[in-house]
């Protein structure tokens, strides 16, 4: 690990200002992904700003009938919150599908949104990776691509967004609240929060330099049967090959997002119109522009079948 200086932030605005003013600064919350990457020198921050003491650790009801989840609410606490379990079950299920009990006790809502890809070439500093070192190339293309993206990728990067929580937040139309270095705040719809790689795969979100996530808001409960189904190489504690977050209503309409297939949670509202016709009709639209590799082509039928299983479970 490279040496770094360390400070504890006293307010969200001060933290954002310090992050913008200090070269090589990064925020640290749970640290479960950042420290992993720092040990490998994939991340080499010169300065860490600890945001744990900022009081952003509450889940509160909003005047609109939804919930406001502080950026520092731990994964365990969000998944176990009685309101989330009752009204946003897909979110609770998605969080519980990820990582281990130890990691969920540390990992935060804001940090989870910002976790980096698990592309093996991103992790290996001896390999070319446009995300880790822009302009160096992409060793994953033509390499071991089984876990990587099948849709929305580019010639520069075929990494996936690895998380589960954000896939559920995408079907729930969550919004990300932030504070910027000048103290101003803004709200980013989750659909616009994560970016596709394009020719700048190192830019993963629409956050500006120094901008700090303060909360994630969930709109009023949408009802329906809520399911998160995750397919992976072992029964627990593994990243998704494909995952499905779904909200299915009695009349067959609903919402669907896929995890494990793209650089961001993959949802197309237009594809959801086909939900009453079944899984094949939905994934045909969702994955119409897919460009799989020979190694990850299996994700296309796997996505359809995982959605079919999800819809069957919703009807049962």
């Amino acid at each position, binding site marked *: 690990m*490279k040496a770094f200086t360390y400070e504890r932030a006293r307010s969200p605005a001060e933290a954002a200002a310090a992050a913008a003013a200090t070269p090589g600064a990064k925020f640290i919350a749970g640290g479960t992904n950042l420290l*992993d990457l720092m040990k490998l020198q994939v991340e080499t921050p010169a300065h860490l700003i600890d945001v744990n003491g900022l009081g952003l650790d509450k889940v509160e009801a909003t005047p609109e009938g939804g919930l406001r989840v502080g950026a520092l609410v731990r994964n365990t606490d969000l998944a176990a919150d009685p309101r989330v*379990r009752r009204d946003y079950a897909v979110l609770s299920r998605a969080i519980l*599908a990820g990582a281990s009990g*130890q*990691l969920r006790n540390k990992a935060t809502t804001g940090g989870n949104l910002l976790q980096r890809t698990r592309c093996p070439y991103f992790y290996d500093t001896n390999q070319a990776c446009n995300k880790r070192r822009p302009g160096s190339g992409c060793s994953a293309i033509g390499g071991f691509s089984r876990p990587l993206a099948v849709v929305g990728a580019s010639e520069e990067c075929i990494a996936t967004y690895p998380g589960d929580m954000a896939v559920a937040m995408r079907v729930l139309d969550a919004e990300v609240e932030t504070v910027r270095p000048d103290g101003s705040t803004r709200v980013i719809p989750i659909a616009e929060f994560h970016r596709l790689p394009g020719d700048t795969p190192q830019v993963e979100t629409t956050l500006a330099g120094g901008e700090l996530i303060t909360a994630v808001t969930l709109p009023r409960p949408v009802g329906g049967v809520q399911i998160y189904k995750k397919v992976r190489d072992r029964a*627990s504690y593994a990243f998704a090959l494909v995952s499905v977050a779904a909200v299915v209503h009695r009349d067959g309409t609903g919402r669907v997002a896929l995890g494990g297939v793209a650089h961001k949670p993959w949802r197309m509202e237009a594809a959801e119109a086909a939900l009453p016709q079944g899984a094949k009709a939905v994934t045909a639209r969702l994955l119409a522009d897919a460009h799989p590799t020979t190694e990850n082509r299996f994700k296309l039928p796997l996505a359809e079948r995982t959605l079919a299983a999800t819809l069957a479970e919703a009807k049962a």
Partner: protein
Amino acid sequence: MADAGDLELSRRGVLVASAASVAVSAVAAPKAQAQAPDKPSMAKVSFEVNGEPHALELDTRTTLLDALREHLHLTGSKKGCDHGQCGACTVMVGGRRINACLSLAVMHEGDRITTIEGLGSPEHLHPMQAAFVKHDGYQCGYCTPGQICSAVAVLGEIEAGVPSYVSADLTAPSTVTVDELRERMSGNICRCGAYSNIVEAITEVAQAPAAGAQA
């Protein structure tokens, strides 16, 4: 003939020497995106471990695991993968289990930390330790301190109503079943494969009267 103490010392010596050689090769490796300051940065932190207060001045890079093992010489918590994948370093902070390898020591100001040494002693085993012995919940024993810390915390989480991925009904109270224990313990890897005995040990402690009070 070397007694057990000498053997212990020489084994530690080998480990220290191999750690040093890793450090040397890391320094010799080409610089990746060098922007970090070259000089170590020191910071002070105070926390309580197993009921005893400690004040340390540490390189900011020191993980909680290294602070416990190398600075406080509490070597019960083990370093396996050092990347949060194996769970050998599991300790409890404020009663919650975490991977001590993926947490900076300086981020634990004022925290109450419990390691395997704080759960029980050879003379007074924690019920979970006794159950692991009884059910043969280990073979080489390297993952065992993490398994036991995790297991004690798992029963606390079930008691507190924290659901898991395999809980059929998210709104119902959590129960102690084999499926639940296997899912909740998935962050603790045992390469000897003692899993079934570990599940038996945890199940026995869960069924004992006042099991929750032990956490």
